[in-house]
Structure formats: structure tokens, C-alpha cells
């Protein structure tokens, strides 16, 4: 069939900010879909609130709206753009929910817009568990017994029928938010009531537990001619009970007979048909009882998903791209397979390697969070590794996690016993760690095998399939034999076996008690080096034309490098808090720019969610861990044919930077700013000297390794202080201390955690205004400032967690000029060639430099979207020798209007964790709002971050004494806007004293009804609550959490509150309008001309 000719304009809905359960895999799939649609000659209109995405690059779509993802805003866009169709299947659950909303509120009908990819009926059927269950029974598929409940009574009745343990699944929430497993009536009460609260329709499903069963997923596709293919089967190493996003998974499924697998495949076909997904991809989850093979259907997602991104990377089959084409009416057999070129997409990929995915959690950021893994996803990122065997892929995946020494699978026993645990205690601890899954369970499995536990014992406790456990025990056995012979006594055969089983040089260094360099040279002496194999969708049955490679220890190498000039770009590894999609965005841009400049581009990365690991982003893709061993081996292979090979390390965040010096020492040319300059900026003493020489102020600082030293430093600098360990990423373990007692507490903890490492102590510039600056500098010393971003929250909030705005709206021109001057001088002094980020603070007419990082920063994509100038691309060109003048950039960049960036947080997933912000970064993603005024831009950003600002109602105010004077004006503005004011006693008295009437409401511990009740009863529409600088009170935390769970805006800084007031004013005055990035950029260009 030819494609449909009645569709000319398509609106693609993105997935919004990165949150747990919905990460950059949707940038990958959305970008693929947009490219595929445009390649078919369609006009693509894109909406996504997340600026840190490749898909929102203005050249990816014809019209790009970085606007809030709400039904109202989408209606405005549809009204303006009049698309023929909406594609909602590449933007996660967010896009599906929006599609349903647009259908239900009549927008689609009103504008005559068709949904393509999935119908509302199909979406509803897959989402509504009751309907889904009935549909499954109709087609003869087994499902777990379950009941819907809307209150506790019904819940108790249901559990009588279904028994404990019981699974709680709230309806219509993302990534299982609010779900869990209850083992007793207490837990049921807690989880069911939370779930009922969180569900938009106030309903939860209670479901028969199949905990401990084997868990599988199928990635399937169907076209409008009812052709059906399975792209990939995935097996969860962690059995049922752990969310698949939190499970270690492997592709292909490894423990199913053909009969079991084909039965599952048959079910898959019946399910996608019955649900009614006429074109596109779906993900279907199954559970199989290991005792008798009973198979049940768990759920189905009628869209591309995290697992389909994984499946695409695991097989080389681009699911999102093909799904977009199928939505246009193509049949699978009409679409060619890009990798083999000669064969069509209507086949089932088969692979001759094993893929292992391991999640990456960020519990260190949320110390109070429960680390137990359940049906609600908690991980923030993932790594994928490819090996010829399961063992190899598994070991490579763990090496990819970048967890430092705690990531090593072996030698953890000695560490634990050194930590003071007795052998008995350790046995008990192990038992618990094995039976209750947490992020650290796999290390417990290895410790248990090292201690001689048997496969049966581990199976009993973990329910992990014996096949996997035997693989692990074999790894432990190999490690034991290696440890016995040592490095000197090791034969080539044994060394080869270890490498073929995936043991990295680093892991071997721990096992053999030798440094990594000795391991490496011994290995090379034995002639053992990695060879590279291709991912080709067909297990070598046909020739492949895409160099998508992974390393292994095999006879034949298929890397086949060219003698061209090439640049190796090192990616940023797994997403984590503080290092997310922004860096992948930058890496992709480096690749795009350098390819345009005629270089052969080579990417190294291990994050399957990313655009950078799409096989057509670069000329050559190595899906490998970002370790020195793997990177240097790739570069060595690429150098073999004689072409010049240089390396980009400044785009992937800390991950590649950590490798910069060792790569340079190994003789590899680093492009752009030298590793020494990068080091200079990170080395406090050297950097302080440099600023001193330049005459640029810096906050007073010092460092200490003991509590006594810290007190001495505090005595000279004076409180408050910012304290942090010398190695930091995303503000890890950073704190603000206001007095000696707090300083002592911090120091004692820090010294215990890492003895000997200095703690950095800075004067905390209280109430200062902070600014972020991104600039590009070239080798002639020219510097172009991309933008100066003013933080909306005052100093003390991590820059990644602070909302910010460009252009600055409160900073006076003289200060802006000074900041430009400082930035230029620092860039020149550091000999920056490429990107540089600097952070400044303004306090009492002095501008202090807080930090300078001569590398890509988190704000680069946001700034690029605001200005319309792709800074990362510009910097990449500068790094290979072009000058800014050659690139036509002679002036600092400007924007048309205001652009506000606002972070989003994962607090909803971590009950008990305070939502208060501080110097430790906690946000997972960001959104951008743009408008001609600050107020609307801010309101849009808030809306995009999920915070609907009230236009009227009651505001609750409770602030600390320090903030009381300044809150008066905010309260007055709110009153003038018609808000009723309520406050806690102290704040209310203060407001009354300043002529504002404020009703008193009880704190949570003062009696009832208290403020929490008032929020739950919808009597409070907004919360302004600033905590004391030190440990906040439990009361505050409760209020903030109730507000968050109930969807009431909760503002914890006064500057944030002031901005909110401005936004409410603007919302009531002007209202929201929408505008495409292309329009903003055209206006900025005109203005300049």
C-alpha cells in the first residue's frame, strides 16, 4: 500500500521533562519519529516543554513549541497550526494521557484532527485494568486476579478474596507512582490510601501477587495490514515484584524453551490485535510461574517505551522510526532495514550477543528514601552493555555504572568486614539483603557466593532463575582461581578466560592486588586485546552497513576503521541527578557539527536511552563502558589505519573529564581546552591564585580535614558556610551550616565517610543573587557570551535546582557588564577553547566568582533554545580550529523575550523525603517557558513543571524570622490580587503588625484542623513556606509534602514567591499564548539586523 496521502501536517507530542520513569528515551524516540515523518515530506509540529532535547532543536521540526504539556496549551497550538493528525505514541505516558484528554474535551473533533499510531479506545483499553483484564480473558489470556477499589472498606474486602501479599496499582499514574506491595493490613491501609489519593480518578487496583515469578517483555510491532513482528524479547533477572525499570534485564530472553517462547509470542499477537493498536509498537509484560510454566499477562503499553528504546539499541531495529512510518500507512515490508539495506523491516531481529541493562539509582541524594525496590520505579538512569556471553555483558554493564570502588562486584566482603561487621552479623545482613530487593542486591549475591553460599540457597531467597545464579557463581569461581594464582602466575589461557568472561582491568586490579596499569601491560604482553563486533539485526546472516560496534574478546574484529581524520566523542554514561540529558544533547551536537566539518565522528557511550547511541547520529558508534580501558582500546583500534584521531572530553559531564588526563598521558590528543586548564579550574588553590592575579573577587574559603581545622577556618571566614567534600558532582553531600555545632556534626560524618579527604569550606553568601554564564572561547582569545542567566532562587540552592531566567531581570546593567568582563578575562586566562560555564553571586554590590567549569554545562541546551544559536555546535567547530569570527559570531548573544528554566523533582516517588531545596542537587529534569514578559514565562515554566498557579483563592504563609520582613510585600501583593491570607501564628502576627489581615491556622502539631487538613480540604491553593537555614522542622516537611501530593504549589524561597506573584499577576492580565521557537529566533535575528 502507498502511504496515506490525506495527512500533510502532524503534531508530535513529546514527553516533557526528565522524570523517574520517563527519561531521555523519549527524546530518542521522538527525534526518530520527527525525522522519519519529515523524510516522508510531512510538515511536523512538535510540542515538548523540555529544552534539553534534540527533538526541540529548531531544525528537527518545522514548528517547535517549547510550551507546557497541558490540554489547554495543546489546544492553542492546534488552533494555530491546524495539523491533520496527532502522533501521541512517541512521548511516553504523558503524550498518551494528553491525547485522551484532547479527545475527551472535544478538541480533536472540533479541529478535525485524527489520532494516528493509537486510538483513544486502544489507549483506554490498555490503561484501564478492568477492561484490559476482560479483554484478555476474551482472547483466552490468563491475567492475575484483581479488583478495583475506591476506599478502604472495598480494599479490605478485596484482600479477603485475594490474600497477601497483594499488589496496589493506582489507575492512570506514570511509572507506577503510588503503587506498592502490601504484606499485611497495615501496609495495605497505607499504600491503598496513598494510591487512591494519587490516582487522578481516585481508584486503585488490588491484584493477586505473582512475586517471584519469572518476568518477560515482548517488544512487538503491527502494521495496518495486520502484519506482526516481535522485535525483541527481554527477560528480567529480578523476578516479579520489582518494577521492570528497576530490574536488571537481559535480551534476548535466555531461559525459555521454544514452546514457552512461541506461546508468549502468540499471546503478544492476540493482545496487540485485541487492544486495537493498528499501527506501531507496543510493549507487553508477562509473568511465568517457574514451577509449572503458567503464563499470565501483566500489562501492555500501546506506544514506544523505555523498553522499546532498549530493544532498539539491543537489536539495531529503530522501533520509533518504523512506528512513525507505520502510522502513515506503510506496511512493514515496504520499509527497508537500514542496517542490511537489502532486507525489509518485516522480520524479527535475531542477535548473536547478549545485552544486559542495569538501572542506576540516586538514593545517595535522598538519604531518607526507602531503598526497597517494588512496583514503583525508583531508578533515574540505566546502562546497557553488550557481550558475546551473558557473563561478559553483565560484567561490562556493572563496569559502565560508574559507581567507583563500591561498584566493583568483588572484594566487597573484605570492605564490609573491615567496616566492623562480625561474620555472623554479615550472614544475617546478607540474608535480608538477598530476600528484600534493593539497589544493592546484586552485590549481596556476589558476596554470598564468595562466602560459599549455594545456588539453591540464593534461589530460595532471591527467586532469581538458577541459570543466572549459576552464571554468577561461575564468575565468583573464576575470581577465586584468579586470586589464587595472582598476576605473576597467570597463564595466557586463564587471562583470556577472565577477559572473555567480562572482567575489566579495574575489577582484576582489585582481585589480583595489582594496579590497573600492571594488569593492562600484562594483558597486552599476552596479546589480549578487545576485538569489535557489529550489531546487525540478523546474527551475521547478511552484510551490515552501519558500524554499530561492541567490544569483546574474540578471534575476528569487524571494526574495519577507515583512514579518515576522526574525532572520538566521549558520552556521559548513565543518567543520574546532576548529569543527565543535557550532556547527551551536547555530545550529539559535537557529532553533528564535526560531521559537517568533514570529520569522521565516533561516539562512545553506554546509555541506551540516548540520541547519542542512535546508529545514525555518528559515523561509528561504540556501545561500550566509559572506562579508561575501553576508551583507550577503541582509540587504539581507530588509530590502526593511520588517520588522525582526536578526542572530545568536554561535552559529556564528569564522566569523560575523569578520563581526560590519563588519555592525554597515553598520548591521545584532546580537542579544545587542555585537560590542564580543566584541572586548573577544578583545583581550588590554583584557581584561587588565578582569580587573585586577575583581581576578581571570590568568596573567602579554606579547607579542613578535621573538625578542629574546620573550626579554625570558620573563625577566620565567619558563618554561614558552605561545606562539601573536595570531589563533588551535582552538589553531592554539600551543606550550608550556620553554627559551630552544625559544622562539627558535618565534619564528624564527613571524616568518617572518607578519612583524609579535605572538606572544602566557603563563605556562604546569604541572600546573594546567583547567575550562570555560558560562553564560547576560541583559540584567538575571542569570547562570545551565550547568555547570562539569573537564578530566581537566592544563593544556597544548587544551580541545577534553581529556576533561572534569561535575560537577567533584576540585575543592574553595571553588574551585567562586569560579569561579561570577568567571564572574558577568566576564559582567556584559562586558555579556554570551547565551552565555559561560570557561576557568579552578587551581594552588596560585589560580584563573586563561585565556580568556573571550562566544559559543557547543564544550561547549554536551554540557552541554545532561547537564543537560537547552537552553542555546543559552535564550540565544537571552535575546538577544531575555527574562529568565532569565521563562524559569524562577534557579539554576545541576545534573546527575544524572556525564557525561564524550571527544574522538576522526583519527590513524589520518595515518601518521607523532604521537598526542601538546598545545595545538593535533587532535580531530574527541567522545562522551559518562553514569553514576552517575565511573569508569563515564569508561569509557563511552572505550569510545564506540573505546578498550576492559582489565579485566586487562599495563600498559606509560614516563614522563618529572617524572611519575615521581606514576606510582607509578597503578602500585600497577594492580598491586592484578591487572595485570602492564612498563616501560622508567628507569621500571622507579623503580617497583622504590618497591616495585613491574616487568619491563623494550626501547625500540624498544634491541633486540628491544621494546615494539612486545610490543604486536603481544598481550602488552601498555595503554600509559601521557607524553612530555617538549619535542619528544618518535621512540621514544615509534612506541610510541604501534603501540598505536593495534593498538587498545591509549594514555594520554599522568597524570591520564588515574588516571582510567583508576578506570574499570577501576568496570568490574570495577559493570559497564556503560544509561540514557536522558530518565531522567537526569527525575531531575535531581525532585531540584531
Amino acid at each position, binding site marked *: 500500500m502507498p502511504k496515506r496521502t490525506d495527512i500533510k501536517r502532524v503534531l508530535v507530542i513529546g514527553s516533557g521533562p526528565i522524570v523517574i520513569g520517563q527519561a531521555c528515551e523519549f527524546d530518542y524516540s521522538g527525534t526518530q519519529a520527527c525525522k522519519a515523518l519529515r523524510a516522508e515530506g510531512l510538515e511536523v509540529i512538535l510540542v515538548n516543554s523540555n529544552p534539553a532535547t534534540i527533538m526541540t532543536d529548531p531544525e528537527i521540526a518545522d514548528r517547535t513549541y517549547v510550551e507546557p504539556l497541558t490540554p489547554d496549551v495543546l489546544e492553542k497550538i492546534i488552533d494555530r497550526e491546524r495539523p491533520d493528525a496527532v502522533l501521541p505514541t512517541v512521548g511516553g505516558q504523558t503524550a498518551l494521557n494528553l491525547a485522551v484528554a484532547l479527545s475527551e474535551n472535544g478538541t480533536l473533533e472540533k479541529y478535525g484532527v485524527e489520532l494516528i499510531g493509537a486510538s483513544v479506545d486502544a489507549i483506554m483499553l490498555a490503561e484501564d485494568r478492568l477492561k484490559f483484564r476482560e479483554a484478555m480473558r476474551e482472547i483466552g489470556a490468563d491475567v492475575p486476579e484483581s479488583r478495583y477499589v475506591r476506599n478502604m472498606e472495598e480494599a479490605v474486602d478485596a484482600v479477603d478474596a485475594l490474600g497477601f501479599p497483594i499488589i496496589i496499582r493506582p489507575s492512570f499514574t506514570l511509572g507506577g507512582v503510588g503503587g506498592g506491595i502490601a504484606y499485611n493490613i497495615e501496609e495495605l491501609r497505607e499504600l491503598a490510601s496513598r494510591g487512591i489519593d494519587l490516582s487522578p480518578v481516585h481508584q486503585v487496583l488490588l491484584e493477586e501477587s505473582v512475586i517471584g515469578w519469572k518476568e518477560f517483555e515482548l517488544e512487538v510491532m503491527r502494521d495496518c495490514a495486520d502484519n506482526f513482528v516481535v522485535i525483541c524479547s527481554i527477560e528480567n533477572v529480578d523476578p516479579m515484584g520489582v518494577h521492570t525499570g528497576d530490574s536488571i534485564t537481559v535480551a534476548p*530472553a535466555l531461559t525459555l*524453551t*521454544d*514452546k514457552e517462547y512461541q506461546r508468549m509470542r*502468540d499471546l503478544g499477537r492476540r493482545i496487540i490485535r485485541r487492544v486495537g493498536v493498528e499501527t506501531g509498537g507496543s510493549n507487553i509484560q508477562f509473568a511465568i510461574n517457574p514451577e509449572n510454566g503458567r503464563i499470565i499477562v501483566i500489562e501492555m503499553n500501546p506506544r514506544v517505551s523505555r523498553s522499546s528504546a532498549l530493544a532498539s539499541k539491543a537489536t539495531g531495529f529503530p522501533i520509533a522510526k518504523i512506528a512513525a512510518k507505520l502510522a502513515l500507512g506503510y506496511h512493514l515490508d515496504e520499509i527497508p532495514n537500514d542496517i542490511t539495506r537489502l532486507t525489509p523491516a518485516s522480520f524479527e531481529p535475531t542477535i548473536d550477543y547478549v545485552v544486559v541493562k542495569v538501572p542506576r539509582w540516586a538514593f545517595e541524594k535522598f538519604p531518607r528514601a526507602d531503598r526497597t525496590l517494588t512496583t514503583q520505579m525508583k531508578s533515574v538512569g540505566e546502562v546497557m552493555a553488550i557481550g*558475546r556471553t*551473558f557473563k561478559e555483558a553483565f560484567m561490562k554493564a556493572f563496569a559502565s555504572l560508574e559507581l567507583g570502588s563500591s561498584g566493583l562486584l568483588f572484594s566487597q566482603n573484605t570492605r564490609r568486614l573491615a567496616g566492623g561487621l562480625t561474620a555472623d552479623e554479615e550472614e544475617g545482613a546478607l540474608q535480608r539483603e538477598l530476600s528484600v530487593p534493593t539497589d544493592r542486591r546484586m552485590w549481596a549475591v556476589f558476596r554470598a557466593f564468595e562466602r560459599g553460599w549455594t545456588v539453591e540457597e540464593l534461589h530460595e531467597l532471591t527467586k532469581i532463575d538458577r541459570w543466572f545464579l549459576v552464571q554468577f557463581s561461575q564468575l565468583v569461581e573464576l575470581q577465586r582461581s584468579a586470586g589464587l594464582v595472582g598476576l605473576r602466575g597467570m597463564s595466557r589461557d586463564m587471562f583470556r578466560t577472565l577477559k572473555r568472561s567480562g572482567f575489566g582491568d579495574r575489577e582484576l586490579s582489585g582481585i589480583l592486588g595489582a594496579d590497573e596499569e600492571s594488569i593492562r601491560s600484562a594483558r597486552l604482553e599476552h596479546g589480549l586485546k578487545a576485538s569489535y563486533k557489529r550489531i546487525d539485526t540478523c546474527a551475521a546472516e547478511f552484510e551490515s552497513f552501519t558500524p554499530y560496534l561492541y567490544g569483546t574478546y574474540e578471534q575476528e574484529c569487524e571494526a574495519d576503521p577507515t583512514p579518515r581524520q576522526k574525532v572520538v566523542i566521549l558520552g556521559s554514561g548513565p543518567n543520574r541527578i546532576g548529569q543527565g540529558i543535557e550532556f547527551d544533547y551536547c555530545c550529539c551536537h559535537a557529532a553533528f557539527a564535526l560531521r559537517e566539518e568533514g570529520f569522521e565522528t565516533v561516539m562512545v557511550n553506554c546509555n541506551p536511552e540516548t540520541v547519542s547511541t542512535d546508529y545514525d547520529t555518528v559515523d561509528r558508534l561504540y556501545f561500550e563502558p566509559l572506562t579508561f580501558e575501553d576508551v583507550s582500546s577503541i582509540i587504539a583500534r581507530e588509530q590502526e589505519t593511520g588517520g588522525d584521531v582526536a578526542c572530545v572530553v568536554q561535552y559529556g559531564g564528569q564522566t569523560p573529564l575523569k578520563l581526560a588526563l590519563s588519555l592525554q598521558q597515553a598520548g591521545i590528543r584532546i580537542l579544545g581546552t587542555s585537560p590542564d586548564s580543566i584541572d586548573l579550574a577544578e583545583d581550588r588553590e590554583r584557581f584561587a591564585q588565578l582569580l587573585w592575579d586577575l583581581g576578581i573577587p571570590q568568596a573567602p574559603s579554606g579547607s579542613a580535614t578535621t573538625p578542629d581545622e574546620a573550626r579554625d577556618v570558620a573563625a577566620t571566614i565567619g558563618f554561614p558556610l558552605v561545606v562539601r567534600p573536595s570531589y563533588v558532582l551535582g552538589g553531592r553531600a554539600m551543606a550550608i551550616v550556620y553554627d559551630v555545632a552544625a559544622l562539627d556534626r558535618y565534619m564528624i560524618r564527613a571524616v568518617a565517610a572518607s578519612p583524609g579527604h579535605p572538606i572544602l569550606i566557603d563563605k556562604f553568601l546569604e541572600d546573594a543573587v546567583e547567575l550562570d554564564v555560558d560562553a564560547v572561547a576560541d583559540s584567538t582569545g575571542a569570547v562570545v557570551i551565550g547568555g547570562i542567566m539569573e537564578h530566581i532562587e537566592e544563593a544556597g540552592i544548587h544551580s541545577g535546582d534553581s529556576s533561572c531566567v534569561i535575560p537577567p531581570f533584576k540585575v543592574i546593567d553595571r553588574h551585567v557588564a562586569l560579569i561579561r568582563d570577568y567571564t572574558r578575562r577568566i576564559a582567556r586566562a584559562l586558555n579556554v577553547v570551547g565551552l565555559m560555564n561560570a557561576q557568579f553571586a552578587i551581594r552588596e554590590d560585589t560580584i563573586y566568582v563561585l565556580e568556573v567549569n571550562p566544559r559543557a554545562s547543564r544550561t547549554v541546551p536551554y540557552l541554545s533554545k532561547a537564543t537560537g544559536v547552537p552553542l555546543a555546535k559552535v564550540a565544537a567547530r571552535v575546538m577544531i580550529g575555527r574562529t568565532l569570527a569565521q563562524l559569524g559570531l562577534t557579539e554576545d548573544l541576545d534573546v527575544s523575550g524572556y525564557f525561564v528554566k524550571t527544574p522538576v523533582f522526583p519527590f513524589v516517588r520518595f515518601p518521607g523525603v523532604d521537598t526542601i531545596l538546598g545545595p545538593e542537587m535533587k532535580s531530574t529534569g527541567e522545562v522551559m517557558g518562553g514569553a514576552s514578559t517575565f511573569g508569563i514565562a515564569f508561569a509557563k515554566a511552572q505550569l510545564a513543571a506540573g505546578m498550576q498557579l492559582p489565579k485566586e483563592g487562599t495563600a498559606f504563609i509560614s516563614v522563618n524570622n529572617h524572611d519575615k520582613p521581606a514576606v510582607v510585600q509578597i503578602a500585600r501583593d497577594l492580598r491586592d490580587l484578591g487572595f485570602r491570607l492564612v498563616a501560622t501564628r508567628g507569621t500571622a502576627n507579623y503580617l497583622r503588625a504590618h497591616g495585613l489581615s491574616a487568619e491563623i491556622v494550626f501547625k500540624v502539631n498544634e491541633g486540628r484542623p491544621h494546615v494539612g487538613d486545610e490543604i486536603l480540604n481544598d481550602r488552601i491553593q498555595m503554600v509559601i513556606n521557607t524553612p530555617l537555614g538549619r535542619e528544618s522542622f518535621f512540621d514544615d516537611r509534612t506541610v510541604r509534602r501534603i501540598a505536593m501530593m495534593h498538587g498545591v504549589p509549594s514555594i520554599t524561597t522568597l524570591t520564588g514567591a515574588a516571582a510567583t506573584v508576578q506570574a499570577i499577576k501576568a496570568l490574570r492580565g495577559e493570559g497564556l499564548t503560544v509561540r514557536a521557537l522558530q518565531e522567537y529566533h526569527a525575531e531575535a535575528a531581525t532585531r540584531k539586523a
Partner: protein
Amino acid sequence: MKAILALENGSWYEGEAAGAAGETGGEVVFNTSLTGYQEILTDPSYSGQIVTMTCPEIGNYGVAADDGESRKPQVAGFIVRDESPVASNWRSDSTLREYLVRHNVVAISDIDTRALTRVLRSAGVMRGIIATGDVDPRALVEQARGLAPMEGSDLVLGVTCDAPFDWKPARPDEFTTSAERQPGRALRVAAYDYGMKWNILRRFTAYGCDVRVFPATAPASDLLASNPDGVFLSNGPGDPAALSYAVHNARELVKSEVPVFGICLGHQILSLAMGGSTYKLKFGHRGANHPVKELETGKVEITSQNHGFAVDADSLPKDVKVTHVNLYDGTVEGLRHETMPVFCVQYHPEAAPGPHDADYLFRQFLDEMEKRA
């Protein structure tokens, strides 16, 4: 124990013995199916062949009594990348190695199976020897060169049954897919056993047919004398062109007006009988993911395949129509006679291993048989 795989092109691979000790020779081929190594091992069509599994982890779920496609392994030898030391499945009776040793199948593991596959893909399948223990690879290469080539080999005589018998169906289990429909009355099928996979028989049972199985050498008149509602020609090993007796019998059947259905070798024999010719493919089709298009409806089936020879489309007489083609390489996958009730497919609608997409062909055979009655 060490083992070596030597090929007639002069190359060899050193690995570990993964089955019985000893030496074996055959045509080295590769199969890309991710599941179903037991079905592959026991498929008589692999007689005379050493099968390489491209899926690297093999043996994980062991071997189960109910999953065989014949009484014992039929391959000449077996090649895997990584052999599982355990059998992890509730139905398994033994590990893969125990099974191979018990049936004296020589196997090798721990070699670069992808490199081997790439050689076979570009140079074509070739003869090879697996030998365990301390062996001289150069001597093995010479030995491989001395093996009889597949072209012209009648391997059917080694795997067909000795005498006619009635297939006694086992009770269907939870893995039996239900038939699209049941016949109005009990139907009798007479089947030529050229090395028939048991799942073909199981599918006939599911479709309500009683099957009498005949040796490959039985005259067509014997089959027709049993007064069948339809005649079936099974899969099997080797070169169809070497089976003049089978082609002769097939010619009789085509003329008989009894509905005839053929699979794989049966399809090739029917093609020859109807006047077509066959040729050897460079590296064959062996796997469970091959897309086949049914030309009449345009529907694409994902199919299970195992064949080294193919029918030449240009050789076919006018009254034989190509019904199915392979979307990988355009080769003939299915034929139908315009006037006689004869149809056949190159691939395996009985699956085992592989997808069940083409099961409808059994229903079509049912239709043909009922139409005539």
C-alpha cells in the same frame, strides 16, 4: 577437553568439546533461531549437517522429553559459543551435554561462531570436521575435503521409517495451539516420510486428521490404496535432485486428483515432479525469522526455515503458480498447481522451532480435503 573444527577452506577453530568425544564430519551450516536448539538437533532435515547456532547461549533450559522432533538428535555435529552447565526449566530432563553424550553427538563450544557464520555467509556452506582431543588440524582439513558433498546426496534413506505405521497422537499439552477449525468428519492423510518432523504429525492431529506414515520408497500406489483424503510430502535432508524415486512417485500423486500438500523437501520434490528444477543456495535459509509474503493477500508471515536448496521460479511450467516468496532474497517459498489440488511450501508451517504464523496452511489442506469429499 579441547576440540577443533576444521573446514575445507583450510581454516580451523579451537574450542572446547561440548558433547561426545570423537570425530564427526558434515556440511557446516548456521541457524539464527534464538530458541529451539532441541527441535533443531532432532530435526531429521539436518542429517549430514553440522549445525552452528548463532545465538551464543545454548543449553540454558536443557532438553525435555516432549520437545523432540524425532527420536534422537539427527545433526552430524553441533557448534555453540557458550554451553550452559545447567538445565534451568521445570520440564527439562537433562542438560544439553548429557543429552549429546548419551546420543554420541560430537559438539564444540567456545569458538567465534560469528566469525564462522560470516565465513559461511560469504563463501557459502562448506564441509567440515569436528574432532575432540589432541588432533592435527591440518589433517582434519584434508579429511573435510574428502567428505561427500551435499549435492547429489540421498540422505533420505537414512532417516525415513522402515515400514508404514499409523501415527498415534499424544495428548495435546498446554503448548498445543488450537487449530483454526476442526473437520466435519475424520480425515485420513497418507504421508511420505522423508525425515518428517513430529510437529507436522502433531499439527495434523490438532486438525483432526489421522495420519498413516509411509517410507520414502513406498510406491505412490501404496499411499493411494489406503484411500486417503489427502497426501502429504514431508521435509527431509539432502539434495532433492538425487531422489528420482520420490519425484517419480510424486508425479503419480499430482495426477491422482487427491489433494497433495508438501513441506520443505516435499515442496522441492513436488516442484521437480511438476516439471521445475532446484538449485543449491549459497548458505541456505535456517532460522525462525524469515519474512515470507503470501502474494495473493500481501500478508507477511514470519517463518521457520531450514533448507539448503530452492526451487528455480523460472523453471516452473505455466500451470504452477508461485504463491509465496521470501522477502529476504525473493526465492520461491510456496507453489500451487492451477488445476490440480496440489500446493506446497518451502518453509515450516509446523514451526518447532519458530513462529506459528503459517499454521493456516494446515487449515488450507483441510479445506482442500473437505472440498473434494
